[in-house]
């Protein structure tokens, strides 16, 4: 993720953060990753992905 940070590969970054959020992490860490996955999906303009991430964030209290 760090290597991709300034790469402009926002879709890839979004998916990496989403994948990280599936790991057995504390709630706060999962929300953090989903937040970044959501922002990069917004930048990518991937509306279905954005909607899916927003659903997950709502469930976790992030939206």
């Amino acid at each position, binding site marked *: 993720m760090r290597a991709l940070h300034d790469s402009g590969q926002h879709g890839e970054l979004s998916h990496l953060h989403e994948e990280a959020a599936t790991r057995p992490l504390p709630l706060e860490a999962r929300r953090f990753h989903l937040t970044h996955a959501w922002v990069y999906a917004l930048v*990518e303009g991937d509306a279905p992905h954005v909607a899916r991430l927003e659903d997950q964030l709502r469930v976790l209290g992030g939206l």
Partner: protein
Amino acid sequence: MLDIRDIAQGLRSAMGPIEEANGLPSPLYTSAEGFELERKQLFHAGWTCIAYGKDVPHPGDAKPVSFLGAPLLVLRDRDGAVRVYENVCRHRGMILVDAPRNFGGVIRCPYHSWCYSLDGKLRATPHVGGPGINRHDSINPDETGLTPVRAAIWMDCIFVDVSGTAPAFDDWIAPLAARWADFTDKPLYPGAGSSFTLDVHCNWKLAIENYCESYHLPWVHPGLNSYSKLEDHYHIEAPGAFSGQGTVVYNPKLSDTQSFPNFADLPAKWDTGAEYVSLFPNLMLGIHRDHMFAIRLDPISHERTIENVDIWYASEEAATSDAYAELRATNAAMWKDIFIEDISVVEGMQKGRHATNFDGGRFSAVMDSPTHVFHAWVAQRLHG
């Protein structure tokens, strides 16, 4: 420090009858204070051209514009409409976009990643309520979108009213829109390879003044004058709005075998007619039966101006096809040569404005009236 009272007499004189008037006072050409006064009372207090629609041709295209210190963002939304916003995040005032680019999704602030959709709405505020909490009651997205700037597009020229208090755009542009009604409903196609800039060491007003009148043509543009003579020109004057000159002998011979297609359904007067108008404050336009050009002035300082020149054609083929590439290049080169011929005189007038005893100059009551119209407009806007 320039005080408006110091130049009040000069402004009153510029507004007088042309036979008695002097040109605008020199501090408006030679001082940073004069430039600042114009920024406030001319450029940021009414409609001004800041870009062209061709600069943002596709949905999602965005172009940052520093408009005399005001950071603006010109963008084309998903529906194809041109919008202008202040180019700053509503969070900490960070510049949002620092170079032209296309946005497939939202506009993300590079500082804390607050995100805005192309309609200006605040779309995301990551971590605003703490880590992973992306909302907070104190931030209402409906009230915290990008700050819109009043904008309008006409003949592919994008105008803004930073003050938000100028007359309605349609009313403001109405006199020129009426004059050029034969063209305003026609599509314009930006010419490929038809853009160039000129960096001129003069006050922006001198470029406008020179463009207003045909008086200088025999002396500064002998080539142009060989087929478009002084007596073939007429004045165009709309006090308070625009001024310029027209010709009745427009008939370019760019090629022995090819010519550009004309705009459709033009009245016969445009067969050999062409008009060149300065739309106050900073846009110089040329209209012909087969192409239009615009010179948008970006005043950089009181003694430096960038001229942004673009040419549009009447059909997509004329504007973009290889078949017309050579003719477009010839046309652009012809205009560029003519505009370059003007540089020595506008830069010469800039140096002349430093003469201690120059009183703004006397006008030819016959030949300089379009220039006087412009001076009177500036004086009225500054003096009231």
